[in-house]
Structures are given as structure tokens and as C-alpha cells.
């Protein structure tokens, strides 16, 4: 081959390689820049680049929405459903991590010009005073060219078509690892546009000490030398521009400032912070959630900067109180200092307030949950207790001044702030044995104590194992259930319908479900469906008899996983119980403290003096 041919073949090879690269990037579309035509995996694309991928998604789906949340990552926790209900709208969350107000302005303009927009909820965060019109990494932070008048389609396409093929390759690799629950590579929920926080929203939270232990970031908070919020003025000009375009187009604009974790304030100069919020008040009225007692409670935050979805519900509730009284919020237990409507007339002193620093004082109420199974004279193991011992234990609790509470009271405390009595305690029974009715119920009646029985749906009223002749301990039936519930002391809740099977009696069933846990090799989707179906059956078996909602469940053998809790939650289960011993730290406004609660198993051998002394600690 002569030199001429070699030199001329160089551009040909370069062109072929470029074409291959562009083709690969177009097909895999790891940033969702071209609408992800082939894989349609927007939750992945949005994780790589929310700015481009979300607009690509909306290009295909904008007729499903008429309202938008807009802002940086803390915008994610605004609750889509509550806002939909409150404003009779269809919200999409256009959160973009690290979004600055220039990004927001460009996108707001695009939305209003091209889509139907009834409401726009704009979140202004402190960071918006720090960066403005910033494009640090082109592939992950680039806007969609359609929303960005400063970028040509050519530079947009060449940027993403000639991107590093490893991004696309990684997408293919991760597609294989994809599960129902979000992972680090697909953190967005496609339909709502918000971060998919299902994993964090079902985690048990517990005491302040437990939480700080699990998330040390709050103890070693990432603080640095204070920074100036030099971009405040530019940011506010963009806010003003957004306000103007909304007014001109009849869009209902709600501006709010998200809760900021107390230690985060130390990263900025104090006068800059005051100026930031005060400048915002000059360009628009807004809902201020930035500084309140919420900011000093680490359990209200997922991490150092992102507040929980529950707090978003509180924000919706606070806004509704003033402007949309028809809306019934999910949570009404809201700290009184949370949420202020700020206007240009708000006095200067208001903006100088900062939340109190975090303290180690736990605001939680300590609630022990006791559990029994069967009452019988024939005591063997921890699942049985003699009626005499049971009576003595109840007597001791009564003498000690414990006040039994129902699960409904517990729930009300967390969601609505209804006060609890002194020394609250919860009594529970698992499985639904007839002896609960015959031996325990009369004693409880005598002492006027409340209790919850978790019944296995399929076993109600049976003394032989499901569809077989195998004899088993008798379980109470509908009549007994009704009588107990009518007394006002007993609530019947779920111990699953048929997910507490007994292998020796399950002839010919090779997939015996002894517990609610996922079976080996079972797909996430199959498992989720099985759990949902079982809970529905359980609710159908109990609710018609008791006339009460089934919203609590105790896990057979205490076994469960993240997927379990998420599936249960979708079926209206709000309280769950494990067999792990311990006392529960219950926090107002934090429904997660009702998940996977600890229980103390009471046995024939329990020493009540020691036990009560332990509780008193």
C-alpha cells in the first residue's frame, strides 16, 4: 500500500468509526438526548442527565401533565399526588440535580410556550445563590437544545452522538441488573419525574441515636469555609422573569423555599443568607419552609441536603390550610413553626432567623409492644403461655400504670398529632387462636385493656389445616371476632392470608410460603404481585366481619424485605411488626417510625419485676 492510499484511507476510517459511534450512542441513548426510542428507559437516562432526558420524556408524554414542579434536587420531595388533589391538576416533577435558576428560567419558558401549563411550583434553594448559568460537565448537565436558546441543535447532537460509548455500554450492562426497586443508576420515577425514594421511605427509622448511627453524615456534617452567595441577584432576576412569563400566560405560580438542614447554613455567610431570602421576597411572594424546627431534626432528612417526602406532604398541608381548604392532607402533625407565607412586607428581622442547631434530645415517644401467641395449660416454648401467668402479667402492667393504646391511637399520634396517654403500651397476639378469645379476652376486659390480634386469614374459624384433615390448634371464627371488636378493646389485623404455611401439611406444594419473605429465585414482579394479592385477600377476610380497616400487619416469623414493605404500603398497610425485641421510638410526622416495629415476646418465664424495671429506663 502506498503512502497516498494510506493517507486517504485515514479520513475514511475516521468517518466510519464516527458513524459507528454515533449509531451506537443513538440506539443506546444513555442521556436520553434523542428520546430513547429503542430502550425507553427514562429513569436511567434522567439519572445521567435529567435536563435533557426529562424534556425528551415530556416531548412524548406532555399531554399526560398540565402542571410542573421546577427546581434543584430538593424539589423532588414535593408530593405529586397531594398537589394533584389540592389543585385538581396533573403534576410532573421537573427536578434537575444542581439546577440553577437560569436552567429553570429556560425550561419554564419552554414549558409555557410549548405545553399546557396550569400550575408551576418553583423551588428556590440556597444553592441557587451560589451557582448560576453553570455548565460544569457537558454531558450530564447539558440542557436539551429545545429548551436552551444558547445552544444550537448541531452542537447538541454532535455532543451526544460523539459521546463516550462507555456510557451506552454501561446502560446495556445495567439493563441486565435492573430490578423493580431503584438502584444507583435509575433513581428517578419515570411517571412522576421525582426521585424514586421507595427504599428510603420504607426504612425503619427509630431513635435519634439509631438514625445518627445509620447516617453518620449528620454527626460529621460536610461543612467548609463559608461561601458567598454571589449569584443571588442573577438568581432573583430569573425568578422575576419566571414570574412575569407566568403572569402573562395565566399560569398559577407557587414559589417556595425548601427546608434547609440546620448545619448547611454554616456553609454560607450569614448576611448572604439573609440577603438571599429577603431578595426573593422583593421579587415574589413565596412559601418559606427554609428555617424551622424541621431543619434541626435529622430524621426529617434523607441525607445532608434532601428532606423527606413526608415533609413535602407537610408543605402541601400548610399551603392548603391557607389557600385550598377543601384538600384533606395526609399528614396534619406539623411543627407549628413550619411554613410561613412571605411577602414584600415581611419585616427584615424575619429573614435573620435560623433554625436551632441539632440536639441529641430525642423527641420520640417510647412505645413498647408486647406479644403473645397461644394461651394453654400445656406450656411448651415461647409461643405458649398459661392463662394464669398471662393474668399475672396483665395485673403487673396495670399495677405499673401502663396505659394500653390501640394501633389507631398510635397512627393518629404520628399522622395527626393526637396526644397519647402516659406510659403507652401496645399489646398484640399473633395467629388468631381461639384461646385468645376464650382466655385472654376476658382478662383484658376485666382490666379494660386494649389489644390487637393478627389473624391468619385462611385459618379463621378452623381447627384443621387448610383443605386437609390435619388437626391444628383451633382458631377463632367470625362470631368471636365480632364480639371482641364490638367490645371496643380488640382490633383484628393481618398476619397474612396464607403466607404462614406449615410445610409438613402442604402436600404436593413445592413452593411453600412459611413467611412473607421472597422465595429463592422468585422474580421481583411475581413476588410483589403475590404479596399484594395475599394482603387483599387478608383484608377481604377480615374487614367485612369487623367493619374496620386492616392497616396493620405482623410479619410471620418477623421476616420481610424492602420490596415487602413497599408492596404492603401500596395496599394501605401503615403499621408493621417484626419479632425483633426492643422498644419503639415513635415520632410525630414520621410514618416510617411505624414500620417494622420491635416487639417483646412475653413467655411463661418472663420476670415481670425485671421487665417493668427495664421498661422504666
Amino acid at each position, binding site marked *: *500500500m502506498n*503512502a*497516498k492510499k*494510506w*493517507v486517504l484511507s485515514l479520513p475514511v*476510517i475516521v468517518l466510519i*468509526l464516527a458513524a459507528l459511534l454515533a449509531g451506537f450512542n443513538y440506539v443506546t441513548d444513555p442521556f436520553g438526548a434523542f428520546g430513547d426510542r429503542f430502550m425507553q428507559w427514562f429513569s436511567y437516562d434522567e439519572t445521567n442527565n435529567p435536563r435533557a432526558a426529562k424534556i425528551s420524556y415530556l416531548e412524548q408524554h406532555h399531554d399526560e401533565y398540565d402542571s410542573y414542579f421546577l427546581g434543584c434536587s430538593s424539589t423532588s420531595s414535593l408530593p405529586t399526588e397531594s398537589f394533584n388533589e389540592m389543585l385538581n391538576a396533573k403534576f410532573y416533577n421537573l427536578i434537575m440535580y444542581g439546577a440553577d435558576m437560569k436552567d429553570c428560567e429556560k425550561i419554564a419558558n419552554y414549558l409555557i410556550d410549548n405545553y399546557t401549563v396550569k400550575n408551576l411550583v418553583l423551588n428556590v434553594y440556597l444553592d441557587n445563590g451560589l451557582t448560576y448559568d453553570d455548565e460544569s460537565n457537558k454531558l450530564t448537565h447539558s440542557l436539551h437544545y429545545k429548551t436552551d436558546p444558547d445552544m444550537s441543535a448541531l452542537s447538541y447532537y454532535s455532543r451526544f452522538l460523539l459521546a*463516550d460509548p462507555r456510557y451506552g455500554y454501561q446502560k446495556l450492562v445495567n439493563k441486565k441488573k435492573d430490578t423493580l426497586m431503584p438502584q444507583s443508576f435509575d433513581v428517578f420515577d419515570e411517571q412522576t419525574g421525582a426521585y424514586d425514594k421507595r427504599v428510603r421511605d420504607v426504612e425503619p427509622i427509630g431513635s435519634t441515636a439509631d438514625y445518627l448511627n445509620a447516617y453518620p453524615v449528620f454527626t460529621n456534617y460536610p461543612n467548609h469555609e463559608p461561601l458567598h452567595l454571589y449569584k443571588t441577584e442573577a438568581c432573583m432576576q430569573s425568578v422575576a422573569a419566571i414570574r412575569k412569563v407566568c403572569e402573562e400566560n395565566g399560569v398559577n405560580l407557587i414559589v417556595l423555599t425548601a427546608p434547609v438542614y440546620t448545619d448547611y447554613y454554616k456553609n454560607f455567610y450569614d448576611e448572604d443568607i439573609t440577603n438571599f431570602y429577603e431578595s426573593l421576597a422583593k421579587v415574589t411572594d413565596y412559601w418559606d419552609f427554609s428555617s424551622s424546627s424541621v431543619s434541626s431534626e435529622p430524621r426529617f432528612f434523607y441525607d445532608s441536603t434532601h428532606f423527606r417526602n413526608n415533609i413535602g406532604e407537610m408543605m402541601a398541608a400548610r399551603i392548603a390550610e391557607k389557600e385550598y381548604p377543601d384538600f384533606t392532607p395526609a399528614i396534619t402533625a406539623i411543627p407549628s413553626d413550619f411554613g410561613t407565607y412571605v411577602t414584600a412586607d415581611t419585616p427584615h428581622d424575619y429573614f435573620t432567623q435560623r433554625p436551632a442547631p441539632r440536639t441529641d434530645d430525642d423527641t420520640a415517644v417510647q412505645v413498647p409492644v408486647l406479644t403473645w401467641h397461644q394461651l394453654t395449660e400445656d406450656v411448651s416454648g415461647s409461643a405458649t403461655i398459661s392463662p394464669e401467668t398471662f393474668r399475672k402479667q396483665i395485673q403487673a402492667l396495670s399495677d405499673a400504670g401502663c396505659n394500653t393504646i390501640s394501633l389507631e391511637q398510635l397512627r393518629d399520634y404520628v399522622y395527626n398529632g393526637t396526644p397519647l396517654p402516659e406510659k403507652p403500651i401496645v399489646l398484640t397476639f399473633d395467629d388468631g387462636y381461639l384461646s385468645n378469645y376464650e382466655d385472654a379476652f376476658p382478662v383484658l376486659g376485666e382490666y379494660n385493656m386494649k389489644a390487637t390480634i393478627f389473624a391468619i386469614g385462611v385459618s379463621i374459624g378452623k381447627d384443621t389445616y387448610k383443605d386437609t384433615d390435619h388437626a391444628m390448634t383451633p382458631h377463632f371464627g367470625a362470631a368471636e371476632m365480632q364480639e371482641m371488636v364490638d367490645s371496643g378493646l380488640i382490633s383484628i389485623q393481618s398476619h397474612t392470608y396464607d403466607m404462614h404455611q406449615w410445610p409438613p401439611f402442604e402436600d404436593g406444594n413445592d413452593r411453600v410460603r412459611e413467611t412473607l419473605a421472597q422465595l429463592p429465585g422468585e422474580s421481583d414482579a411475581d413476588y410483589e404481585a403475590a404479596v399484594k394479592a395475599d394482603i387483599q385477600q387478608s383484608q377481604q377476610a377480615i374487614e367485612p366481619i369487623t367493619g374496620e380497616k386492616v392497616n396493620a400487619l405482623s410479619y410471620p416469623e418477623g421476616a420481610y424485605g424492602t420490596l415487602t414493605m413497599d408492596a404492603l404500603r401500596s395496599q394501605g398497610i401503615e403499621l408493621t411488626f417484626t419479632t425483633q425485641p426492643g422498644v419503639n421510638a415513635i415520632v410525630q410526622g414520621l410514618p416510617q417510625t411505624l414500620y417494622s416495629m420491635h416487639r417483646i415476646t412475653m413467655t411463661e418465664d418472663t420476670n415481670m419485676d425485671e421487665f417493668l424495671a427495664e421498661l422504666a429506663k
Partner: protein
Amino acid sequence: MAFTSASFIVLTIASVLLYYIVPKKAQWCILLLASAAFYMAGSVKAFAWVVLVAGMTWVTGLILGRYNAIKPADKAQKAQIQHKKKQIAIICAVCCFGLLYAMKYWNFTLELLPSALGNHIPRWDFVVPLGLSFFIFQSMSYVIDVYRGKYAPERNPLRYSLFVSFFPQMVQGPISRFDQLAPQLTAERKLCWDDLQIGIQLALWGYFKKIVIADRAAVLVNNVIMENCPYGGAVIALGILFYCIQLYCDFSGGIDITRGVARMFGIDMTLNFRQPLFSTSLTDYWRRWHITLGAWMRDYVFYPLAFSKPFGKLGKWARKHFKGMMGKICATSTATFIVYLIIGIWHGANFRYIAFGLWNGILITASLLMERRFLSWKEKLHINDKSTGWRIFMTVRTFGLVFIGRYFTRAPRLKTVFTLLGTTVLHPHFSEFTSVVPTLGLGISDFIIIFVGILIVHGVEFFEERGTDVQAWLNERPALMQLTVLTVSLVVLLLFGIFRAGYISSEFIYKQF
């Protein structure tokens, strides 16, 4: 404008196309325009400095040329002319090196002064122009050569400016000589496919060394060699080893790009590296590493120094007081020592570079003085210095000395140099190889790529050292093989170079020197 930037590649392609399209008389103008564009893209202010230096040396050259043209009538007039010439050359040298000093060493000097005094003298915080010392050295070599009457001065200021500012060499040399480079720059050329092919191949090879190997090795180096380095000696030594790899691949890769681009215009630039990995002594190393700097120092520092009157006196004095060889080479050794000290300081304004100069100077001077003794030892021990074993021993030993020297050029300051050296020897902590190395920013694949890359570089240099022209050999292979090599090279550059995770086009290490 970094070599790794898209704009450099666009500039190169555009100027090569134009170069062969325009009338042959105008070809050199394309090079001048491209050079101006290259420099202006960086900074207009810096461009002004190039113009200033080029203008000053061009005028000096013309004046010196006029004196050279005078045929002296007698010895007195000859001496008078010589005196005038000397004055003019010295003024020009003081201006040029004064500028270099002011830009690079002024602030360092202030730091040396007592703070009461230093704080009152204004600091000089100009941006050091790209490749400042390279174009000053290059234009001063022209002035001195004209002064010495080696050649006539260039009358056309634009042609001369092209010699000073030819864009491929602006960043990091090589430091060319006027008589070697200028005629090539202004020659008229037909399109030669062989030159294009060889030039492109050279540039690709340079890019491979630079962005695939050097930029990758740099990640580890930057994570290890720093103030208060928390690691043990083994990891530090690995960091310095990677620094050696980074420095060589970055610098020689950059020179290959320079030579490659120049070759696309049919211009053959002087070699700056000749397989320094195969050096058998430190002196040999400096003849193979950054050759043009060494040659410049030899012609314009070492010779004048060695033939100066004070050194002549020193030589005579030494001959009288020391017997044999010692007396004879005392003066040259001193001159040698000074040259290496200057080479050290040339690298930058810092004590560690002075120490680097001392390290090289002392070792080389000592080996000069000990040469005879070594020879007799070798005879006694029956060592055959042509044997492969001896050569390997010498090569490894030389690399060891270079390796230690690299502590001086990489550590942030002189104190750290000694801390790092001390830790390397006293606290190796070999166990950190498994615990720390994976956390230094490079994955397994990166280590493999660096390792394979080094093998390839070393392999090619091995054949070059044995006299094989690897490029010529490659270009005689069957077409299919050539196309495969080309395609694989481009894919490797793309995947392991341009698309390195979070790739940002990096700057040359040597360009501020």
C-alpha cells in the same frame, strides 16, 4: 491551545490543506498565519511578548550582520568591531534573559529576600507566555550564531518571525537552530504523500503516548506525590515511577506530535529524544533526553564558559597543583557542573530544581573525575564493558539515578523531596500495594493499559535503538495489516485516550518550563 484540543487538530488540518493549495511562494505565509492563530488563540498579551522578542533579536541580528560585513583594515579595527559586536550581543542577551528572569524567577527572588525588604518590592504577576523559555532560547541561539559569524542574518522580519514562532514547536520545543530550520520553513514544496503519512503516524504515536499513557499515569501521580503524603515508601516509589512514565510519555509524545505536524509540511525537525530509556550513564542520559536543550547549553553556555579567561586561568592553576588527569579536566568539570546547575534552574523557580541541578552536576562531575579509577577497577574485575550483562547493569543503574532525580522535579518543595525520599527508604510498607494502590484513582484496566502501553513504547524503542526504522518497516507491510493497525490505533486512541472517564484535555507538563 493544547495539542489535545480539537482546535489544534482543526488548525493543523486546515493549515496542511491550505499549505498545499496556495501558490508555492506563499506557502511559508500559511505557516506564519497558522502560528499567529495558534498563539493568539491562547492570549493576545502573550503574543505581544513573542513579537517583542522576535523584533528585538531580528534587529540585533541585522546590526551584527552589518558589522560582520565590514572587512577590518587592521587588527585594531578588528578588535574595535569585535568589541562593538560584543556590546550589542550582550545588550540583547540581557534583555532577553532579563525578560525570562522577570517572568519566571522574579517572585522567587523576592521570596528569598528578607520579608521586610521583599514585601516592599512589587511582585510580577504576569501570565508567563506559552513556551517562553523555548522561543527565547531559540532566538538567542540565532543572535549568538550571527555574532559568531556562523551565518548571515535574515533580512525579512516575517520570515524570521516564522522561525521564532513556528506553531508546532511553540509549546515545548524542540529548540531548533536557525540554519537547520529556517531554510526548511521557507522552502517551496510539492505535496509529498510519504511526508504526510510519516507525519500523521508520528503525531498519532505522540498522541498515544500522551493521552493513553501519560494522562492515565498522571492520575496516580497526583494522588500520591503531594505535601503530607500519607502513604508508605513503596507507594511513593510507585508514584515516582509513574511520574517517570508520565513525564517521558508526555514530553516525548508532545515532541512526536510536533515533529509529526512539521513533517506534514515536509519539515524535518531536530530530534529531542533518542531512546533515553537505554542510557548507560547519566551523561549518556542527558545526551538522549531533551537533546536540544543539552545541545543549546553545550554550544552557548558550556563552550563559552570553558574557553573564557577565568576558566583558562583555572585550568592552568589546576595543571600546576594537581597531577595527571585531575589537573587536566578540573576546569571542564567545573564548567560541566555549572551547566547542569543551570539546566536544573531552567526547569523552574524553586529550590528543588536547584537541588535537581546539583544532583546531576555532582554525579556527572564526580564520574568525570573518577573515570580513570573506574577503568582500572573494571580491568581488575575482568568486566567486559561490551557485554550485554554489563550494559543492562549500567542501564538499570542509570535509571535508578534518574529515578531519584525525579523526586526533585515532582515533589511540591525541597523539604518534601527529602521527606519522600526518607519514607521510601525507611518505611516502605509493602502491604499498601494491595490496600492503597486500588484507591489511587486507577482501575485494574488502567494499570493494564499503562503496562501494555509501556511494553509497546519500550519495544518500539528497542528496535529503534538497534537501528531498525520501525515506521519504514510498518509501511512495507501488506495493505490489510496496515489498515488494521491504523484502525486499531484510532480505536485505542478513542476509547482509552479521548474517552477516558471524565476526560478533560490536559496541558503539557513541560510548557511552562
